[in-house]
């Protein structure tokens, strides 16, 4: 009995993997087409963003309250913003244009989300890694002190972004208000997300408040891995993980609800 149900799960996983891959390839072609550099835009675009911000911050000699080189600060900060902010932007309104796909029974709402999330997270990650390597190569940046901690922070941030994206993507299907509110919310959250400050530089009272923002914890973790002993970082790992678990459960339940109510054109 147990082996048959395991086999069933394996079969379902294979189908879902296939569907997500097909959706991903379709999405890449739809978004980037076959003109000029094609799907390379997936990470060239975030790279341009990050580089631009790095240059701006360097010129403006941004005050960030630590002895870190501004390049390292901007790279870790802005890449993180791209990671958590772009995923919701891509999932809001993801279902409507793909409604007709629901005629293929193996395609579910979650698959559409997953395909877009993989693409978005992939683009942000490739951009982060390539820029890191490039800056390290030209000597603007020291190699990370502890790569695994960087990965840990990055993955947690991606998890947060992905569950937020699925939640907002599902809610947006019910009400346009979500889309209207997300733009200002994302804009206001940007300076609060830890991209442009170190928690250690804040006054003690503000530090406590800042750590209630999930992104701040993850960005601090990324920086802890990157800069190791050079800086003092503050983060609350159990809080971040609990927040992500809660958000994921909420997101999946909302996605299940809209799946039931969906009407293909």
């Amino acid at each position, binding site marked *: 009995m147990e082996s048959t149900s395991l086999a069933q799960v394996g079969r379902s996983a294979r189908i879902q993997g*296939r*569907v997500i*891959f*097909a959706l991903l*390839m*379709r999405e890449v*072609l*739809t978004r980037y*087409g076959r003109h000029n550099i094609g799907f390379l835009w997936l990470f060239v675009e975030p790279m341009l963003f990050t580089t631009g911000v790095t240059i701006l911050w360097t010129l403006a000699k941004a005050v960030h309250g630590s002895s870190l080189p501004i390049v390292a600060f901007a790279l870790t900060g802005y890449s993180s913003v791209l990671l958590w902010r772009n995923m919701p932007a891509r999932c809001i309104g993801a279902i409507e244009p793909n409604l*007709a*796909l*629901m*005629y*293929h*029974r*193996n*395609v579910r709402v979650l698959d559409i989300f997953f395909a877009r999330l993989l693409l978005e997270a992939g683009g942000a990650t490739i951009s982060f890694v390539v820029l890191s390597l490039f800056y390290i190569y030209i000597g603007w940046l020291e190699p990370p002190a502890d790569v695994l901690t960087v990965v840990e922070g990055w993955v947690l941030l991606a998890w947060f972004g992905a569950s937020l994206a699925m939640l907002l993507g599902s809610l947006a299907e019910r009400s346009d208000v979500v889309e209207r509110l997300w733009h200002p919310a994302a804009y206001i959250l940007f300076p609060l997300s830890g991209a442009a400050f170190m928690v250690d530089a804040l006054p003690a009272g503000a530090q406590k408040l800042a750590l209630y923002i999930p992104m701040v914890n993850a960005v601090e973790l990324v920086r802890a891995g990157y800069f190791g002993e050079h800086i003092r970082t503050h983060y609350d790992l159990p809080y971040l993980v609990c927040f992500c678990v809660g958000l994921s459960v909420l997101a999946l339940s909302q996605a299940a609800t809209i799946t*039931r*109510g*969906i*009407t*293909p*054109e």
Partner: protein
Amino acid sequence: MIEARNVCKVYPTRAGNRLVLDDINFTLGRGEKLGILGRNGAGKSTLIRLVSGAEATTSGTITRSMSVSWPLAFGGAFQNSLTGLDNVRFISRIYKQDYHQNIDFVASFTELGLYLREPLRSYSQGMRARLAFAISMIIEFDCYLIDEITAVGDAKFHEKCAEELFHKRRDRAMLIISHDVNYIRDHCTRFAVLDEGRLTFYPDFEGALDVHSHNLHLRGA
């Protein structure tokens, strides 16, 4: 077999909930061909969507113990910015089919030639219909759902469709809805009329047609 039991579908509208399908019951066995007549807005397409599994019922159950196609000749799952070949590739991936073999079939069926490499937005209605139908024929199903297949395309296209569906796949089950009553008469073995959300079966085509014509003129005038 497909079995629909006490199927109801309610859509919320500005004027309150509207009962589109009211306690629908039927079974469709292997090889059976069921034709459904009904006026515009009677709920025929809704029924097809429920049977295809694309949409959930409000109450009642639909069980499928054979593989069921998506509504045939339906072109909506296409992305306008993608080429015909891209769309074939997408469907092949979803259903785990050999893409190269499918391309050959689609190319010979649609006779679209170089257009297969052009984005869909440059296609005419007829070209789209040809592509949509060819893609539907890539995957083999036990039961085909056919929704107004004769609405577009020329006579030759209709002949080719009939050849693929009613000759090569004559052993399959089919659920056909159409405004073309002759199409239903020629290809179906069982007949039903959908009206006011209720599905009524008739022993022969003439019986169904009488009621259908009556409904048309009663409320159509």
